[in-house]
């Protein structure tokens, strides 16, 4: 009896140990499971890709499991899983300018340089240079840009016409005068709306900053949010929202809240990323779908300088045990055909070929296509400070924005922000 029991225990221990070991040792780089785990963000791009996913599954014989999350939740998910060295994410959609540096520095992203170079059909040279620069870390390509963004001016054609304006504002001064006039002519409608949340507003504020001749960091790498130009930009953006923004303005608005005010017909002008334009032109989501117009970002003292950035890219988790299949997915999803299909579906791509192709812009509202063209020509390649601790930096340089909106002392706020931001830059050196 005892012998039997002992051997039973012995055997089960051995089995447990064996299972444990195989679990630890399982895989290796390219044992290649047939199931590919892809983590994507809520975006028009994701909606489009999900509809044609079966195409990829058929041609590759793989099964794709998609996890789809909101921006913030996605970020949290990566923080938890990648920190733990988890292997259950293969392909990851990430924001090169927000998390790119941090992830690459932590070694979460696989080096794709060779894979991309070897593949002539993928044609890495077809990608616009600034987006590729943003997905490159220490000379290594760690992501493939899939969505680009420029800031444009959304406006209400009907209100402009009603107040006797024949064209959208060309300069920021005109924008201010027109916003005031439209607000006066249409009680209950704000002249202007834009993001107001401290961190959320930074990216859309950046075009104002550049157009006033400023930037977050100057040529010598020093914080520069306390220059005369930066203070003017803060005053202008905050002042426009304070004087001509919605009544009782909240200082927590991100794009979804600001977009809701615009698409409910409660604002005349709205500066926002063009990649969100479908929210305004889709009759199911917008009350102003047939009266919305688009214009290039109005010029400031330094000209019209909107950002032109890669907002999302695809990367491969360094811990993934399914890397070659993950690359197959990227080849397909960021390939020429899909990029063109996405572009037709309303998502601005990062490949030069889709912009050169008349088919690539045919589905865009004409004025939007025109605005994008202008923005790509004179755009700035970043829309937030390019540091590792982006979230913290955005809060610092965003403080003067909310202080300006609420009518506080902007000069003092900008000085304090500059000092704190400089400290962050010093710490990262």
């Amino acid at each position, binding site marked *: *009896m*005892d012998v039997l*029991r*002992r051997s039973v*225990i012995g055997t089960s221990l051995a089995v447990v140990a064996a299972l444990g070991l195989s679990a630890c040792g399982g895989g290796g780089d390219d044992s290649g499971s047939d199931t590919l785990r892809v983590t994507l963000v809520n975006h028009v791009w994701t909606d489009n890709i999900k509809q044609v996913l079966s195409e990829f599954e058929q041609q590759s014989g793989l099964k794709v499991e998609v996890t789809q999350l909101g921006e*913030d939740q996605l*970020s*949290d998910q990566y*923080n938890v899983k*990648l*920190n733990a*060295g988890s292997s259950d994410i293969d392909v990851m959609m990430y924001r090169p300018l927000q998390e790119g540096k*941090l992830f690459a*520095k*932590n*070694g*979460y992203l696989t080096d794709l340089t060779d894979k991309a170079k070897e593949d002539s059909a993928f044609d890495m040279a077809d990608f616009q240079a600034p987006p590729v620069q943003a997905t490159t870390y220490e000379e290594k390509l760690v992501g493939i840009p899939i969505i680009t963004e420029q800031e444009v001016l959304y406006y209400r054609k009907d209100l402009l016409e009603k107040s006797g304006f024949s064209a959208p504002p060309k300069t920021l001064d005109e924008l201010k005068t027109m916003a005031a006039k439209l607000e006066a002519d249409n009680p209950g409608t704000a002249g202007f709306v834009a993001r*107001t*949340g*401290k*961190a959320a507003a930074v990216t859309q504020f950046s075009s104002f900053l550049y157009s006033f001749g400023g930037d977050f960091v100057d040529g010598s790498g020093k914080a520069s949010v306390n220059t005369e130009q930066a203070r003017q930009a803060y005053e202008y953006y905050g002042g426009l929202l304070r004087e001509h923004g*919605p*009544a*009782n*303005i*909240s*200082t*927590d608005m*991100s794009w979804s809240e600001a977009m809701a*005010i615009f698409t*409910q017909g*409660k604002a005349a002008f709205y500066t926002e990323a063009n990649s969100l334009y479908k929210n305004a032109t889709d009759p199911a989501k917008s009350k102003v779908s047939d009266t919305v117009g688009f214009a290039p970002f109005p010029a400031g003292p330094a000209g019209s300088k909107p950002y032109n950035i890669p907002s999302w890219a695809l990367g491969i988790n360094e811990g993934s045990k399914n890397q070659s299949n993950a690359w197959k997915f990227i080849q397909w999803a960021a390939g020429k055909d899909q990029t063109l299909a996405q572009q037709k579906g309303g998502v601005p791509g990062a490949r030069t070929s889709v912009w050169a192709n008349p088919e690539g812009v045919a589905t865009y509202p004409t004025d939007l296509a025109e605005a994008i063209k202008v923005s790509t020509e004179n755009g700035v390649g970043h829309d937030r400070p390019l540091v*590792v*601790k982006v*979230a*913290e930096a955005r*809060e610092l340089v*965003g403080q003067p924005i*909310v202080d300006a909106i*609420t009518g506080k002392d902007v000069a003092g706020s900008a000085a304090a922000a500059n000092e704190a931001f400089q400290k962050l830059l010093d710490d990262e050196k």
Partner: protein
Amino acid sequence: MASLASPQPSGELTGWTRWANNHRKWLFAAPAMTFVGALIIFPLAWTIYLSLTDAEGSVRAESEFIGFANYLEVLSDTSRFWPAVLRTVGFTGVALLFEVVLGMAIALLLWRPFRGERWVRVAILLPLVATPVAVGMMWRLIFDPNIGMANQILSWVGIGPQPWLAGQHSALPTTIFIDVWQWTPMVTLILLAGLTSLSNEPDEAARVDGASAWQRFRHVTLPLLMPTVIVAILLRGIDALKTFDILYATKGRGGGSFHEVETLNVYAYGLSFDYNEYGVSSTVLIIFFLIIIGSMWALTSRRKKGAQ
């Protein structure tokens, strides 16, 4: 297998069986102890360890042991940490006060049987079963300064629009209101259970002696109910200190652009998920943990005194 069912005298056992028999109490407690060890003690110890390092960026990255430097940094931080402590304490204190007073009033109303009692009870308990995030989203819509229902209703009685959650100074009171709305039913439930278990006799005796309703409540019911009240305060208080869902759903990361509703929990979350400063974040969490333990200890010792 029969030997398992009927224990044999230990003299006949050998080897492992004998060892197991002699260490029964450890053996049977082992699963529970492993569970506690793996899910409570290990994470706690790991957090304490992290709080003594300068871990940031990634917990797998190299970090240095820096002793109590994080604690010094956090405890001397008057721009984020101490305001967050104040908000945490203020939020909990005010919410708890309203919840206990209102909860007591409602419990007293529901105590005696009346017509339609069941429906009223169900209606009052409804907020309790709603998901806090959904509750947060709902109130966020109601309190929207431009298109929300709250300002609409105020306009009917001639009061101008209020900023509610959007205001720098009105955001925290508004979230307290939401917390009171959601959690008063729980306090009611606990107090009601306590009231139902009270004997009627002391109350009747006081009535015979000519005590007024308020006197009977103040000098008879309340003292008898005190242990239950303290349990309610204890449970709700600890929960309120740790509130995260309502605050995050209504004001988002960092508790708003001016950190209007940033409590310790929201602050620690921001430190680890936005700033990736795991060392400092762990420090805040350990201090927060000590604050909770401290208040729990204060209340339980009070309860023991009350029970004696």
